């Protein structure tokens, strides 16, 4: 078994005064303190943009020194927007195989040291650079194509789609680590600044700096949660390769391996933290998992199915939309939040009596997908 014994997060924000390592160290020290441990066998650092923004290679080794852990084994993981989930998966393999007893996994990325167009250029590399990423798609172009396809294919009203962002803001408002802690009027979304029409600024994750960490151990100690599994699958390089570009085949595969769906079509979890990089990503995930029927996720969200008191609370943290999405660190926010929910200590929107939760992470629109399943210890 593998247990989460500590979690630490930094509020996602513009941290001009902190470098990548200092930001990561803040989260890591909180996680270590939380787990009441000072030594670990392994440090795994996850980061995606720091190779371009800081820029720093071999991040984990330098971070180990920043943490005063010289001599520890260290490894850096990069898997785009799914870097965090990939690092948790690696840590799980180390702990379950007995190669490590205690692993500190920490994710960090800064997105505000450059102006936005330069960051959009970095983010474009999340897509296949000999395929669609070769063109000037920015960070949101594929989201724009998919959102228009969704509206055309299913006849979904643009106004109804806006309730997703409003729900995320309502949740983030109560999360002290969230970047956007204010309510959002759904009527403002459609006519906000266009990023990649029909996607507007209010459909997209904000650019922010963040770091989050968890400690994963083989012995329960004072565990917050168990990580039952982290499953993943790689997908097609482009949404253009899919028969239905709105269906994320790699996610369907990862979810089936993780067993989060029951035989009756209902989900065997009490809440989820999902990768809602854009409004359309949230709907694609919910529909691929079967939580909503095809073309119905927007309506379901507007009617409260995914709200805190709904049938299946999704993103009590505020999600990528409002908690924020510091690329390589995002997975750790998700796992830290899920573990805290299960331990009943999440300082924001609490899901009552949560026994099992899932974490869904993607790169892009599913070049890879990860599904983690956690439970009370």
């Amino acid at each position, binding site marked *: 078994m593998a247990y989460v014994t500590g979690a630490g997060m930094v509020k996602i924000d513009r941290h001009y005064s902190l470098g990548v390592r200092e930001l990561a160290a803040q989260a890591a020290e909180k996680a270590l303190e939380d787990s009441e441990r000072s030594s670990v066998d392994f440090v795994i650092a996850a980061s995606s943009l720091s190779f371009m923004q800081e820029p720093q290679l071999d991040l984990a080794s330098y971070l180990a020194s920043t943490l005063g852990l010289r001599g520890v084994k260290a490894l850096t993981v990069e898997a785009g927007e799914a870097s965090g989930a990939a690092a948790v998966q690696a840590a799980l393999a180390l702990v379950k195989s007995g190669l490590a007893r205690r692993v500190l996994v920490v994710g960090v990325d800064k997105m505000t040291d450059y102006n*936005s167009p*330069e960051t959009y250029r970095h983010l474009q590399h999340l897509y296949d650079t*000999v395929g669609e990423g070769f063109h*000037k798609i*920015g960070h949101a172009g594929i989201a*724009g194509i998919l959102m228009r396809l969704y509206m055309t294919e299913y006849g979904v009203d643009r106004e109804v789609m806006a309730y997703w962002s409003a729900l995320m803001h309502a949740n983030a408002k109560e999360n002290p680590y969230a970047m956007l802690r204010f309510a959002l009027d759904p009527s403002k979304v459609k006519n906000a600044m266009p*990023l990649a*029409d029909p996607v507007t600024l209010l459909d997209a994750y904000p650019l922010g700096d963040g770091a989050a960490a968890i400690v994963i151990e083989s012995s329960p100690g004072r565990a917050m949660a168990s990580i039952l599994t982290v499953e993943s699958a790689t997908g097609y*390089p482009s949404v253009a*390769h899919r028969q239905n570009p709105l269906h994320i085949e790699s996610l369907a595969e990862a979810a089936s391996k993780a067993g989060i769906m029951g035989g009756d079509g209902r989900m065997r979890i009490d809440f989820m933290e999902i990768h809602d990089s854009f409004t359309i990503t949230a709907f694609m995930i919910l529909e691929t998992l079967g939580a909503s029927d095809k073309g119905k996720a927007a309506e379901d969200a507007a009617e409260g199915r995914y709200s805190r008191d709904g049938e299946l609370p999704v993103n009590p943290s505020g999600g990528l939309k409002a908690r924020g999405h510091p690329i390589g660190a995002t997975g750790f926010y998700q796992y830290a939040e899920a573990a805290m929910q299960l331990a009943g200590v999440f300082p924001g929107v609490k899901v009552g009596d949560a026994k099992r939760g899932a974490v869904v992470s993607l790169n892009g629109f599913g070049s890879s997908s990860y599904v983690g399943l956690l439970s009370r210890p």
Partner: protein
Amino acid sequence: MTMQKHWRNRRSLYRLEGAQCMDCGRVFYPPAPRCVYCGSGRLERKQLPRRGTLVSYSVVYSVSDEGRKEAPVIVGLIDLGDAKVIAEVTDADPDELQVGIQVEAVLRRLGVQGESGVIYYGLKFRPALGAD
């Protein structure tokens, strides 16, 4: 982007070359050493039709500095029958563009490297002339 990378991709960029799998029969773009669907290495290069249907598109404002001068940039998902591709759409007014129209491939300038650098060309798609 470097000149070398552009050169490596010249066949897909200039000639709209994809690949057809000899085992599963499917066609995909851009070509790769193995079939993206079944993993087979038995592939043949295949020139894709230059005309297709615009399935969806986005008008992109949040582009990098390289695309600032031409922003907004229209990118489209185009169904060429054998395969779907994502590429830039040109010669179109964003307000008049519509899903479902016929588009055709046309060679255009993709970008310039620096002030006196190489000018890159490649295929974009424009609303088909004499479209039905």
